[in-house]
Structure formats: structure tokens, C-alpha cells
């Protein structure tokens, strides 16, 4: 398996990581080692094992629809890098910049 430079750049964008050329190269080769490991795992015969995403065997864990207390907004905003008038402030987002 070889990971192209374009693949690495693509994954970096998805992960919101601003990587320079040297970093892309270094991380790309590390990523490749991980993918090789996964590829090795995929060689194991799992045809008799059903797919699972959970090992706890719990099902139907639900809560009743009761509303409780929320945080005071000052506390909610307490960890924000910037806030204004009760809002979190982030860099300008254009509606068409990324698909929500």
C-alpha cells in the first residue's frame, strides 16, 4: 500500500490540520505504517464473526423525556477562547465555505 501525497493532504484538510511539506511527508509515512498494520489485520479470516461496534451487549439504554437544568451561560462560555454578548466568537464563516 502506498499513500499518495494527495491522500495525505486530503486527510489533513478533513482533520483541519495545517501541515507543511515536511510534516506531510513525515506524517504520511507514519500513517502508512498504521494502514499496513490494519491491512495485516484484514487478512485474518473473520467470516464466522459477526460485525460489531459494541462489546458491552447493552441495548435500548434510553432516558425519559424530562427537561432538567442547563448551565448558566457564563459557565457555558467559561472555556471559550472568545465570547461576546453571550455568544461564542469564532473566525468569520461564510455560509458557502463548507457544506454543513
Amino acid at each position, binding site marked *: 500500500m502506498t499513500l499518495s501525497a494527495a491522500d495525505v493532504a486530503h486527510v489533513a484538510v*478533513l482533520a483541519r490540520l495545517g501541515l507543511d511539506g515536511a510534516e506531510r511527508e513525515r506524517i504520511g509515512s507514519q500513517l502508512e505504517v498504521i494502514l499496513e498494520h490494519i491491512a495485516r489485520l484484514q487478512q485474518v479470516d473473520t467470516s464466522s464473526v459477526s460485525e460489531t461496534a459494541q462489546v458491552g451487549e447493552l441495548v435500548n439504554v434510553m432516558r425519559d423525556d424530562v427537561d432538567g437544568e442547563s448551565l448558566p*451561560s457564563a459557565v457555558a462560555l467559561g472555556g471559550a477562547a472568545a465570547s461576546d454578548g453571550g455568544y461564542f466568537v469564532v473566525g468569520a464563516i461564510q*455560509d458557502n465555505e*463548507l457544506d454543513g
Partner: protein
Amino acid sequence: MAHLAIAVGGDGRVSAQTAEPQTNSAVSAYEAVIGLEVHAQLLTRSKMFCACSAEYIGKPANSNTCPVCLGLPGVLPVINRQAVEYTVLTALALNCEIPEFTKFDRKNYFYPDLPKGYQISQYDMPLSRNGWLEFEVEGAPVRCGITRVHLEEDTGTLHHAGDVLQSARSSLVDLNRAGVPLMEIVGEPDLRSAEAAREYLVRLRQILMYIGVNDGNLEQGSFRCDANVSLRVRGSDALGTKVEIKNMNSFRAVHRALQYEIERQAAVLAGGGTLVQETRGWVEARGATVSQRSKEYAHDYRYFPEPDLPPLALDSAYTERVRRTMPELPAARAQRLQEKFGLSAYDAAVLTAAREDADAYEALASQVPAKLAANWLMGDVAALANERRVALHRSGLGVDGLAALLRLLDAGTINGPTAKALLEELYESGGDPAAVVQERGLGQLDDEAALLAIVDEVIAANAAAAADFRAGKEAALGRLVGQVMKATGGKAQPQLVNRLLRERLA
């Protein structure tokens, strides 16, 4: 008809140019293929995965949040039981299959209105699949397939600082809406016109409101719609390039946006051009869809199963229990009222448009003649509800008060004009119509001898009109009836006055 085509240049600037004025003939060569995705907020008390209130409209920014919906590290979501039940109820109303096993997944993307960096949604094992919705478009039956109904969480809302979006340096984030239960209803691409798309939405919204899972507010965004539109040459089965349309927040906007997009695509194809698969936003002020140039990678969501939520195993006993809570749906109710009360199809559709209206009609029609109830509800009551912006069931008079009023009218205790005046007077304030009639002596004057004396006075005082009538001018009678009604303070029964006048003038 000429129309505008919007082009986006490499610099991202939008320019408009007039397309070839052969749009209508271009459109007629193609068939539109439309599929709709609806997002509907569920009317639960609390959010999808935490106990914050799901009511966020009008609340101070970020006053409705907790560590779970803020996406703080180390917290665990727990599924809202009512949201699952509402989704299953909706799926059943839309004739879907409910699988016995379903799970949640993470849909990963970065956006400031999504504090966790992923949305909890459902990917490959949704709560339901394979349903359909039937309705009529211009008298012809249409069946639109429902691909799936699944459950997810809403995002927060973004506000742009500064007046003009382009000049804004920062965006403001309010997470009150983040985590509100959101149901996604994905329709098959079975719709063939803007009219069919609008009708599908009207019927779907009506059903959601009937079963009490959504408040149907397009303007405030509790009921939202995106559309996928492509064109193909008539008679062909091939699918054309699909364009996604967003930002339509009224039924009118949906209709206009789809109509515009169909014409735009037809003009491109007829001119030998090719369409780009893209997302376009409806810009109401410009009456046009505009490319949003969303990057390809934004759709790379890397779904994986949500490790923090155990799956749901909803057996058939559960599904049947939910099914038993299903109220009568609008189409069935309209049909039943048509048969039971002899209503026309049109009247039945109007009277069952909203569940509260249908409830009011049935309550009234069991107490007064069905036709009388229908006429009043669709006439004076509808006009008044519209004018005063208060639905009957929320008015002071209420359904019971209206029933009492119509019983007085039906029994002949009061006449039509008095009933109408009382309706207007008591609509908001409320009150017992019978007591008001008694108190103010509004009862119909049905003492023939007393009325006859007034009739004679009116004839004597209006000799000219009386002579006209005797000479064969029917219209003159109306003037005399009016005078008698005036002399009795509007309390006489017009038919009786009419008869007495005719007898006296014979």
C-alpha cells in the same frame, strides 16, 4: 419567457446573464426528477441526548446548554425515548418498515455550529425504510417513495457579526439549538414537477402535525427542506446530473426555487452545455439559485458507529404499541367525514387541513346540522380566525362556545345576523352566548302579532316601495324587509318578515 442564469466565475463573483428566450420549449423537452429531504425537529421537552430544554426560540444565547450538548470531553449521551417513539410513529404514518435492530453513527465534519466535530446521526441502519406517501397533484394520484426516516441531532446556529456577510470578521455561535432531536425524512426521486414537490411537502407537514411530532414552522426552521433536482430527456430512464438546492424556507420558495432550477437546467442542456453536480442556495431576493461551490471533500463524512450509544433493538411488540397510538391520518379522516356528513371532497379537505379544525368540525356537526357547521367554520369563523390571528380552538369562545351559538341559531332563537355579531363579539373574550342573548333580549322576535304591527307601520311609512312591489317590482320587497329589520333592531327572522310582508301586500 426570458429568465436569469447565474454564473460563478473563477474569482467566485456571481454574474447574471439573460438566457436564451426559448426556455419553455427547452423545459418541455425534459422531465424533472426531484427528490426531497426534510429535516423536522421533534416536539420533545428535552434534547436528543441530554436533559437541556428542546425549546430554544427566544432564549438568551447559550442559556440552554450543558456539557453533553456543548461537546465537552468525557461526557456521555443518552437517547431520548420520546424522540425514538416519535420517529417510529412518523415512519409508520409513512408506511415504512421498522427493522428490529438499529444504531447511531457519527458523521464527522468541522463546522463551528457542531461542537463535537461530529453529528450523531444514523447511517446504514436507520430506524425505518421503504415507505410511501400518496397524494394528488392537479387531480392525478401520485405515490412518492420514502427511502428512510432516521433520527439525528440538530446543530447550533451561527450569526455573522457585522451587517454584511462578506465584511464580517467573526461569527457568533449559539448552541441552544445544538442537540435538539431532528428527524430526517428522505424521499425517493419520484416527483416530476415543482407542484408535486410542494404538494408532497404540504401533505408531509400535515401528517407530522396531525400525529403531534412537529410544529411545521418553515420560517423558523423547525421543518426544513432540501431538494435534489435533475433533468432527463422525456421518455428516457437515465438520470441526469443532480443539483442539490438548499435554503428554501417557505412553500412558495420551494416552488419558485424548483421552477427556476428546472428552467435553468433546461436552458443549459438545450444550449448544448453540461451541468455540474453542485449545491445551490435559493436566494429569495434575487429569485434565483446560486452556486455554493461547496468543496467535494465536505461530503467525506467518514461515518462510523457511535461507540457511546448502545444500539436499539425495537421488537414488533414495541412497534405495534406505537402503532396503536396513531391518530386517524388526514386523508382517512377527510374520506370518513365526506361519507359521514355528506361533505364535498373540497370541503372535507379544507375542514381536515389541521387536526384541531377537524376536531372542531366533528364536535359541531354532532350538535347542529353538518352543513350549517361546515358553512360557519369555512366562512365566518375562518375569516375571523385569520383576521384576529387566533385559531378557534385557542379563542375565548372555543369550540364549545361556537357550538352553543350555532345551537341558538339552529333552534331559531336568534337569527343569522345576530349570530354573526355575537361570534365577532365573543370570539376573543368568550362567554355564554345563551346568557348574552337572554340578558340583552337579542332573541328573535317570533311573536307574529307584534311583528305584524311593525310590518303595517313600515308599509304605511314606505308607500312608494309598497306600490312598486304591488306593481311587480320584486326588488322593492328587499327595501321593506330592511326597514322591518331595522325597526326590530335586527331581531326579526328575515324569512318570517318576508312572508308577512307578502301577505300584507297581496
